[in-house]
């Protein structure tokens, strides 16, 4: 068998794109749009996720000690608590500190606490932070066996609430992202299908002239890949522009929200775009071709 040259196939692909201008343009436009939407939504999800992470403060347990413990006993308890693997940080809060923060919380009525500073009725306590809600039970179990612990208070309700919101929001968004992804792939494949469809005559003539399936397909598949590549590069720049202009107009008004700078995500976005663009481009043409090369 004689040799076929790679340059031939690439040349054919480029020629195909050029000579079928209308179709190539429409395909690139559609592919690009899908990628932009997909990318924008991913950026949204990533940002939401990052901002939700910051809500983690609620992951702590306050451990109240018995009244009238000696300093040694307290230090000993601290040592025992620190032994608990699941406890991330352990911070001692003296009775005075506790009273002061209570007074502060009363706001307007802080003066009500004045009397107590002379003879503090509170005990020392420890603030334990942990990483995961699941650790809570273990930590509490361990605490029960420590002498001198009067009681402890977790923020289970708040924790659960926040974690519910987080997982709910993420669930909805990830679900949405998946849907968007499926729809995009579907749209892209359909678009490329249409464009291959409008060239089915050309394909059948190739068959009549004795071209094998792969010889016909390769330029079309390369066309799909090149269109995908074009589309993803354009989509990247559109995305950058959109994101930056959004951050620009949003950044001023809200400070508590942290927006991830585009540069941090740029590489990943470009890579994912190219992967999706090229893959769907190739898939789209392969799928539609198989119908017409079998004659």
């Amino acid at each position: 068998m004689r040799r076929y040259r790679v340059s031939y196939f690439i040349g054919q692909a480029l020629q195909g794109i050029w000579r079928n201008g209308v179709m190539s343009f429409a395909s690139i436009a559609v592919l690009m749009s899908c990628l932009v939407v997909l990318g924008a939504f991913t950026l949204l999800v990533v940002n939401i996720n990052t901002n939700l992470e910051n809500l983690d403060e609620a992951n702590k347990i306050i451990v109240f000690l018995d009244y009238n413990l000696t300093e040694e006993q307290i230090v000993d308890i601290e040592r025992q608590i620190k032994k608990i693997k699941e406890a991330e940080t352990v911070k001692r809060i003296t009775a005075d500190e506790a009273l002061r923060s209570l007074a502060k919380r009363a706001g307007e009525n802080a003066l009500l606490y004045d009397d107590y500073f002379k003879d503090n009725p509170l005990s020392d306590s420890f603030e334990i932070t942990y990483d995961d809600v699941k650790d809570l039970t273990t930590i509490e179990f361990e605490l029960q066996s420590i002498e001198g612990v009067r009681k402890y208070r977790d923020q289970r309700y708040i924790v659960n609430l926040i974690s519910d919101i987080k997982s709910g929001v993420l669930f909805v968004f990830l679900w949405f992202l998946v849907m968007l992804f499926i729809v995009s792939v579907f749209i892209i494949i359909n678009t490329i299908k249409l464009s291959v469809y409008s060239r089915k005559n050309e394909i059948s003539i190739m068959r009549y002239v004795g071209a094998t399936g792969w010889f016909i397909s390769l330029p079309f598949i390369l066309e799909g890949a090149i269109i995908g590549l074009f589309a993803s590069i354009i989509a990247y720049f559109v995305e950058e522009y959109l994101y930056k202009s959004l951050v620009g107009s949003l950044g001023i008004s809200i400070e508590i929200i942290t927006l991830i700078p585009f540069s941090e995500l740029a590489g990943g976005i470009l890579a994912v775009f190219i992967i999706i663009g090229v893959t769907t481009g190739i898939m789209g043409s392969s799928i539609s071709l198989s119908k017409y090369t079998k004659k």
Partner: protein
Amino acid sequence: MIDFVHVVKTYPNGTVALNDITLHIDDGEFVFVVGASGAGKTTLMKLILREEKVTSGKIIVDDVDITKLSYFKVPHYRRNLGVVFQDFRLFPKKTIYENVAFAMQVVGTPMKVIKRRVPALLKTVNLSEKSKCFPNELSGGEQQRVALARALANNPSLIIADEPTGNIDPKMSLEIMNLLLKINKLGKTVIVVTHEKNLVDYYKQRVVILDHGTIIDDRVGGMYE
């Protein structure tokens, strides 16, 4: 060598285009196929090309029953045929040059051979100046000649031409027929479908006459009608 053995072709819509055709064509023969419009001439060609499948019967080309050819072998089989289609079947988005070159690229002909041969072929059919045109920029007869040039591109051992002079003036028709005869003299098998009485009568070759899907006459030097 082509052998039709009791070939029947019925199209999906029920039209019986060929009815029990048995026909033997030797290597190196020159055969005219004539017959009224709708007699089944093009269908006969399509069966040889394996564009359509037989309904029943066998077609043996060079000892291979092409009705049993697998999908993967069809392209390779077709490369030994040079076909001029009644409707030309040129690539609309390729130039004349590329149209002819494509047939050669398909079989993996090296670039430098293509660059030499395509202009020569276009010269043969008198279309040298049109090589950069697209098919829709050509007249009917010119397109037909491009189809002929493409059919000849790979030096096939069997040439099938369906009305190769249908859109061509008498002078050019004679030239083309002479060209086909010359090729035939080189040992190639040539099958020409035509309705041009003059040509058939003039060349005194074997004539197969089809009528309503059956062969009603088949002899050398046979007169048309």
